[in-house]
């Protein structure tokens, strides 16, 4: 990779590389943020902010490490802050007001999700009863399907800590599901 040298930081990647970085990683970043924030517009805004931060911090990343965990780490950091900063109420207003814009297939998609993917949707609801760290760990492992080593990079902890977190999170999730969504346990898949 060859980069131009300019006098003013941040230098960042060149345009072609930057486009490719966004193209390759925007979907997992968006998906993680959607899971954590529960709102597609909020997730899109935060994904945008993630890449802006990544661009500014580009020269400080470790080029020997894979890019995706680094990007997801920025996304997780932003999502944690956003969840603290914005109440659920503002997000609802945000979402509603934005829906008045040009027609978008996203609305249909949301409604379809509610109707069609009820099981997975209810698992998501169960996950959202857990503590934030449990939620984050489950999303990374089972929804984004990161390895434990990659999660360790995202969360900046030892791999043993990830294993413990996963174990505890699954245990707590099972307790919530048994109590409130018992039909989610062990039902065969695909019966519609």
């Amino acid at each position, binding site marked *: 990779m060859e980069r131009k040298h300019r006098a003013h930081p941040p230098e*960042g*990647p060149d*345009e072609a590389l*930057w486009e490719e970085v*966004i*193209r390759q990683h*925007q979907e997992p970043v*968006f*998906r993680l943020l959607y899971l954590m924030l529960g709102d*597609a517009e909020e*997730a*899109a*805004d935060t*994904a*945008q902010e993630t*890449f*802006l931060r990544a*661009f500014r911090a580009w020269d400080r990343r470790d080029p020997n490490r894979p890019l995706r965990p680094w990007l997801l780490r920025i996304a997780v950091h932003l999502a944690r802050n956003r969840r603290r900063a*914005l*109440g*659920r*109420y*503002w997000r*609802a*207003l*945000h*979402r*509603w*007001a934005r*829906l*008045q814009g040009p027609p978008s297939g*996203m*609305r249909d*998609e949301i*409604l*379809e*999700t509610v109707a069609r*993917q009820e*099981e*997975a*949707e*209810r*698992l998501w*609801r169960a996950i*959202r*009863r857990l503590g934030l760290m449990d939620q984050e760990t*489950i999303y990374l492992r*089972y*929804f984004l*399907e990161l*390895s*434990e080593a990659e999660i360790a990079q995202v969360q900046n902890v030892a*791999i043993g800590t990830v294993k413990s977190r996963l174990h505890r999170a*699954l245990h707590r999730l*099972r307790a919530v599901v048994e109590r409130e969504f018992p*039909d*989610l*346990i*062990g039902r065969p*898949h695909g019966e519609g």
Partner: protein
Amino acid sequence: MEPRPPSEWEDRVRELARQFSYPPAPDLRSRIPRPGVRRPRGRRWAWAAGAFGAFMLALGILLASPARAGLLEFLQIGAVRIRLQPPPTPSKPAATPSPASGAIPETRMLGILDLAGETTLEAAQAQVPFPIRLPTYPPDLGRPDHVYLQGMGGPAVILVWRDPMRPDRIRLALFEIGPGALIEKITPQVLTATTVHGRPALWVEGPYLLQTRSGRWELRRLVEGHVLLWTEGEVTFRLETDLGMEEAVRIAESLSAP
């Protein structure tokens, strides 16, 4: 490096997670400035600060327009989603509950006193992760006559007061709905923007169908009265009453821990 064999439960979580339907990811390449171009900071916060004004203004426009159903499909306040168009397969409300058949999804028509999960205030409080609050207005209201604990995809408590002069009538029903729940109203007749403690709230006039999900069941109930909706923190409040909006707001603003 996976020393633990995956458990059945872990496999189940993975399987369900793979079924999850995400909204389509936006193409951020068109939204993110090219290298060297800085996005102005604070734009989003400015937008958020204007959201309340937009909410009130747009809601006024929305309600005034006969073509409102063409503008958007639903709006949401906290855990309550209000459909502005009829559902794709409308069903007529029935006056009596229909028997359960076990099918998924099954629709049941209920009166509020038909709800399952009746319990005591103390038992309900032990089950939900938020403090249950009671109105202190009107002063003669007292404790609720019925308390129901419901799983609407999230914990919800329903408090019901009967009319002392006509015990067959409901004086007041207060839903306190925790995070994760979702209930839907369908095509209410009148929507009005108001405030509770200075924060935006919605006043909804019936009749309309109230649709909730509880486990494997889809429940529908014909609501004849009016409803005030507002949120405080993670909890959504839904006050159902025959009273007018001002009285409902007064009741809403009187809530306190018992």
